[in-house]
């Protein structure tokens, strides 16, 4: 059974039809990168996977359970899905350690000691064991994003969602975050990553999904989608991303 299965997903904001029938699956242990132009609906798709956005039509199955069903225990489903946001969204009033324990103690009912042990372990995994008692404001963007990853990992998720995790970072801080994500992928974590980092997608992804205007245009192994795209829209997009100075010839 696929870890995530999405069927015929439609989402509109008012008259803006953002997702126009998305079908796709993520298998256990798979790393899937979603690429596509800005405004194509990548974030919306990701946010439908843990129902931060409620689709108007279609189903999202997590481990076979339809989380769009109104009788589904949504909070229980969300515990299995970690999410990392472009803007980090750390809790500014809590220390780094408490950021990583607050959901463990309130949602999973772990004891304070157990939660702190797990938080320290995950912070160690992202290379921030020395920042345990710092507050988010005292950290660089790259460190904050790594805390956000540790916060999500502390809940032992089966799937991690990343929404452009490095887009808000200064260029010299991008590498640290990508290194952590690469390690996570090697450890076998199932990951769905929206990104503009083509080198990362090429290297780490098992599958790349190209989205445009609310539909999946093509998907497949990175060598095919990025290295040898079939669709003209994919080629146009990649030309623009890989060579920003390139000027389209006017028809």
């Amino acid at each position, binding site marked *: 059974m696929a870890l995530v299965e999405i069927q015929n997903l439609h989402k509109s904001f008012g008259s803006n039809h953002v997702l126009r029938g998305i079908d796709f699956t993520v298998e256990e242990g798979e790393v899937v990168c979603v690429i596509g132009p800005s405004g194509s609906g990548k974030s919306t798709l990701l946010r439908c996977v843990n129902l*931060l956005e409620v689709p108007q039509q279609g189903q999202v199955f997590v481990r076979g359970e339809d989380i769009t069903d109104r009788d589904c225990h949504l909070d229980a489903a969300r*515990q299995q899905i970690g*999410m990392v*946001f472009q803007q980090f969204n750390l809790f*500014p009033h809590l220390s780094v350690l408490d950021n990583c324990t*607050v*959901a463990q103690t309130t*949602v999973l009912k772990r004891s304070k000691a157990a939660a702190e042990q797990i938080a320290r372990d995950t912070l160690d995994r992202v290379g921030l064991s020395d920042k345990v008692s710092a507050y988010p404001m005292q950290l660089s963007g790259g460190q904050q994003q790594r805390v*956000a990853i540790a916060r999500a990992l502390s*809940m032992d998720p089966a799937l991690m969602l990343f929404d452009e995790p490095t887009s808000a970072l200064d260029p010299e801080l991008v590498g640290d975050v990508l290194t952590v994500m690469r390690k996570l992928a090697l450890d076998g974590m199932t990951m769905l990553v929206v990104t503009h980092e083509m080198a990362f997608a090429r290297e780490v992804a098992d599958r790349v999904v190209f989205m445009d205007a609310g539909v999946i245009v093509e998907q497949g192994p990175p060598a095919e989608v990025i290295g040898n795209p079939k669709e003209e829209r994919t080629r146009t997009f990649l030309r623009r991303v890989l060579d920003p100075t390139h000027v389209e010839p006017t028809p």
Partner: protein
Amino acid sequence: MTVSDAVVEKRRGLSPRQRAQRSRGIQYAVLIVIVVVAAFTANWSQIAEVFFKPEFVKSAFTSGLPGAFLKTIEYTAGAFVIGLLGGTLLALMRLSPVAPYRWLATAYIEFFRGLPAIVVFVAFSLLPLAFADLVIPLDPYGTVWLALGIVAAAYMAEVIRAGIQAVPKGQIEAARSLGMPAGVATRKIVLPQAFRIVLPPLANDLILLVKDSSLVFIIGTSAAAYELTGFGRDLANTESNLTPLVTAGFCYLIITLPLGLLVRWLEAKAARAH
């Protein structure tokens, strides 16, 4: 050289600094005139006699001023707690997805913010007449806390609602994505940040509450329950001298001035954090 050229020439004669100096000089002159006129026309010995007579200051202290001071603080503190709890509840109701809760909270807030506080106090003074067997516990505190707290809750609700809405949406999304139910996310993530945001305006509400506690004497409490204004007024009446009331007035400043400093410090701290 024409006439207008001459005027321009003359204006140029005064530099901006010189003009500023002249303006300041005029302001000082006006001030000195006012002070001199006041000094010669007012009957200072009588003013001192009526408002600042030392022996009445002393007698105020010996006949219950410290107790009244304490009552003012107790009344204010209790009302603040009620206002804070009630205000938080009302703010959450205003933001509730359940429409009737929103209507109820809006009606309450608009009603008590539109009403002069003194009307509420007059109403409380008449309650025992209307309901003969009504007993509000913790007399006199219960009545006072309720009367002050009911109005304070309406004001604080709006402040707290604004604070809750100022917490970025991403905070709720992060909390919910970790599997926190809405209630837990509100308690653990949203409210702590909202209260940090509204701390300066809440401290401001506290200052207003200190002053509003002076309306308590309208309820008609017994002498033992007098706060500063009630006490000062009573003693000023029996002594036929305003000194006790002035003394009570200064006691308010002892409370409100440090609170005012606290507000400014909190505001500066909040400004630094952003």
